[in-house]
């Protein structure tokens, strides 16, 4: 028994995922479903492994246990060619943008198009300008990544992630470093990519209210487990103490704010190390 239900509306299904960096356990049996054409939010405290989850789905890390299906095929059983074909159908927005620093903004967005399509340069130009327009940076096309602010880099990276019109886009913290205006634009953009083009979206974010307002479904992960999942209303109304603590942003509660450490007094009073 694999535990995968073969429902066609699941684009990604993660079952009993186990993963660790060295001996450090990050995931200890996690199930996540990403439904086609929906916006799925993944929330959780910093350092729980949200970025790691996206990298596992993208086939960059191999889990120690469990399976990840993308459109019915096991991501980690593909040969390289098939995996690369799969990745062309996934866009990923990296947390820090990860733009190629020796290319201009324009060339960064054009990069996947030039690599994977045989489109004429004039057509590529039109596509790139349209994608840049969508993130409000058409005027910045000739700048180099080092001339951009953090928020701008992330928006360029978003334009790059959607350049090939993928089936799914994974957004890692798209809202950090955005002012309220660009934040609003980005939220509407993610939502509209979803409604008008049917792109499946996975949004990792700490901005609970914002992400819940555009999500169809949400997961809260912490301590290697899924704490809760449901529609935004279900999440908001959750009785779970863990979820309440996360939503209300209190440092003390079932979810520890601190990385594992001995008590502060003991550390301060103890011998210098």
């Amino acid at each position: 028994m694999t535990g995968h239900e073969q429902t066609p509306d699941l684009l990604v299904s993660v079952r009993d995922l186990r993963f660790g960096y060295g001996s450090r356990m990050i995931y200890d049996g996690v199930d996540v479903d990403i439904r086609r054409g929906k916006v799925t939010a993944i929330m959780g405290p910093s350092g729980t492994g949200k970025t790691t989850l996206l990298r596992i789905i993208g086939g960059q890390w191999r889990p120690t246990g469990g399976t990840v299906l993308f459109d019915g095929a096991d991501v980690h059983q593909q040969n390289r060619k098939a995996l690369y074909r799969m990745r062309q159908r996934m866009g990923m927005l990296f947390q820090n943008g990860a733009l190629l620093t020796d290319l201009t903004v324009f060339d960064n967005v054009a990069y996947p198009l030039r690599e994977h399509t045989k489109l004429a340069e004039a057509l590529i130009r039109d596509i790139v300008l349209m994608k840049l327009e969508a993130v409000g940076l058409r005027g910045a096309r000739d700048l180099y990544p080092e001339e951009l602010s953090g928020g701008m880099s992330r928006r360029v990276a978003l334009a790059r992630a959607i350049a090939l019109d993928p089936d799914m886009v994974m957004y890692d913290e798209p809202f950090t470093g955005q002012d309220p205006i660009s934040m609003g634009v980005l939220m509407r953009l993610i939502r509209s990519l979803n409604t008008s083009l049917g792109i499946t979206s996975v949004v990792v974010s700490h901005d609970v209210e914002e992400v819940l307002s555009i999500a169809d479904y949400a997961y809260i992960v912490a301590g290697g487990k899924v704490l809760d999942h449901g529609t935004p209303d279900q999440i908001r109304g959750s009785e779970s103490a863990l979820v309440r603590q996360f939503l209300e942003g209190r440092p003390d509660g079932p979810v520890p704010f601190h990385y594992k450490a001995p008590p502060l007094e003991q550390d301060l009073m103890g011998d210098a190390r």
Partner: protein
Amino acid sequence: MNGIRLVLTNFLSGLGRAQFFLLGVLSAIGPALLRPRIIVRQLYMIGVLSLVIIVISGMFIGMVLALQMANTLDRFGAEDAVGVIVALAVIRELGPVVTALLFAGRAGSALAAEIGLMRATDQLSAMEMMAVDPMRRVVAPRFIAGVISLPLLTAIFSVMAIGVAGGHLIAVDLLGGDTGTYWSQIHANVDLTDLRQCFIKSAVFGAVINWIAMYQGYHAPPTSEGVSTATTSTVVVSSLSILALDFVLTAFMFR
């Protein structure tokens, strides 16, 4: 005893990983050749930008060599041999070795730092997620450019050292030797084998330096310290490898 074993195991497993990496690079060379523009850009970054240091060093090495030789050979009345000795020393040894050492310091370190930073800033991961193989687009083009550049730079170094400025300047222009003798002596005593061995050495050095630089950069921990360590070890490891390999190659060639 245990310490030694640990160091040895680490060294061997590192060597194994580096060989595995080299296989990856070599198998990416074919696809990389389909994108000549990336290679041309790297030829500029790696080769053309190393020109100044190579030209100047070649001049000075040729000059110093000629001065030393002229002084000594004069005592035996053999000052006509200055050209030959400079030419043989440069073509057989100093040209390939010194050029490679300079290249490791100038281009090898830059390559390791560049690739290490690309790793640290997730650019390599981003390429992978865009279904672009960084081996083909980043590593292999630089490798190819390095292997092409070093023999060319060595040739330029040798020409500078023997002809244009170095040896010729001292032996002929400064010490009043005869140009005709200078060149005809060289012509009579340097044969094609010497040139071929010079070329083989520099091609091997080019491959080794680039292999080390790419490997160090590609596997650098994604931190500032990781990148700086990768840069330093590229220069140290490739300099030592060049000297050791030079000995081995020379021993084989003069068997």
